[in-house]
């Protein structure tokens, strides 16, 4: 009987402490943009890091780290929002008020505009918001996003297309509410 065996592959596992140090702010803001209330951010961030710690040995180091981390935040935010006590009425938007006024192309980005962008994000459905954040804000490819969120590639493309529309419509509504042109 042959007892030859292949040498075990050298495990390459990211250091949890390093991930915490370098990615805490990232996950904090992701959770916030996924709708976690300010008062619950610490608990949710801790919860996400606990899950990251548990799954770290399974992480494939050749994959990009942030989409992987994002998936934990996404699922945590989904569960969080599923709890009735965390549901938030988005009364900030008047859906019936649509505004098709075009934007000026050349404008400096003001603080108000950035706040408007954050507000528009908060109006979006979570699954589309997640795709939009990963692609437009973080610059990940759609296949990467599909992989990290465990959704079919076509679904990811579809969500991205709908997310762009939804986001732009939300911006228009918010601008109309503010009386901006």
């Amino acid at each position, binding site marked *: 009987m042959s007892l030859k065996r292949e040498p075990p592959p050298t495990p390459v*596992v990211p250091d949890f402490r390093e991930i915490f140090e370098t990615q805490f702010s990232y996950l904090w803001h992701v959770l916030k943009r996924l709708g976690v209330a300010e008062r619950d951010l*610490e608990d949710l961030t801790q919860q996400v890091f606990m899950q990251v710690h548990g799954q770290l040995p399974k992480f494939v180091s050749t994959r990009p780290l942030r989409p992987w981390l994002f998936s934990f935040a996404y699922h945590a935010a989904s569960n969080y929002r599923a709890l009735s006590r965390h549901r938030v009425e988005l009364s900030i938007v008047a859906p019936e008020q649509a505004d098709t006024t075009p*934007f000026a192309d050349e404008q400096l980005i003001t603080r108000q505009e950035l706040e408007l962008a954050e507000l528009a994000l908060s109006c979006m459905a979570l699954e589309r918001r997640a795709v939009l954040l990963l692609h437009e804000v973080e610059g990940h490819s759609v296949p990467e996003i599909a992989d990290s969120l465990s959704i079919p590639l076509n679904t990811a493309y579809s969500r991205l297309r709908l997310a762009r529309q939804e986001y732009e419509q939300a911006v228009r509504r918010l601008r109309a509410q503010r009386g901006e042109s």
Partner: protein
Amino acid sequence: MKPLETLRALGTGGDAPADAKQRVYGALMASLGATAATAGAAALAKSATLPPAPLIAGLSSAKALAVAAGIWLIGGATGAALYGALHPQEVRVVYVDRPVFSNSVAAPVTAPAPVPSASNAAVDPVLDPLPKRLASASAASASPASVLSRERALLDLARESAAHGEPALVLARTEQHRAQFPRGKLTEEREALAIRALLSLGRAAEARTRAQAFHLAYPHSLLTPAIDSALSAP
């Protein structure tokens, strides 16, 4: 500016509140406490302790044991030697895979440096004979894997003493570890054990001095919150 351009300008956000980060870190360490070990240490320990079960299936029990023991020794020693050769300066073992104290102190994990020796004289010199597992580990070769096993076995004894509420014995074991492995890979854990043992013995001043050395040697230690928490406990 178009809406999507503004969205891209958001970026991934600035720094999160530092105090929130500190609190989350402390809570994480408290939760992970006794089970948090670095992935590298866990992987190393796993590779050194798991016998290749599938390979011995089908053999008689005696042969299987012999084969398993041989493979375990060869595989462990080879793996550790390769690991040590490839990463000679990067290995930092943090060994916290079980609770250490039955009292209020949580289990920390990392490694400190030179520590004041004032407490040496006060250490209980009377130790039980080394248990078989430690003697067995001591009899092994001086390969990195066997050295680590001996370190671990010794600290396991200290941990067991702590669980039985015998801080004097814990301190004696940690001093024994320091004498045998002055540059060991588990010195960080040893110091954490020693600091808590000193606190349990009411030797707070020594514990604080030793903790200061710990903080200097390991300013970013995973065990810092646990040690600080123990020091600040009434």
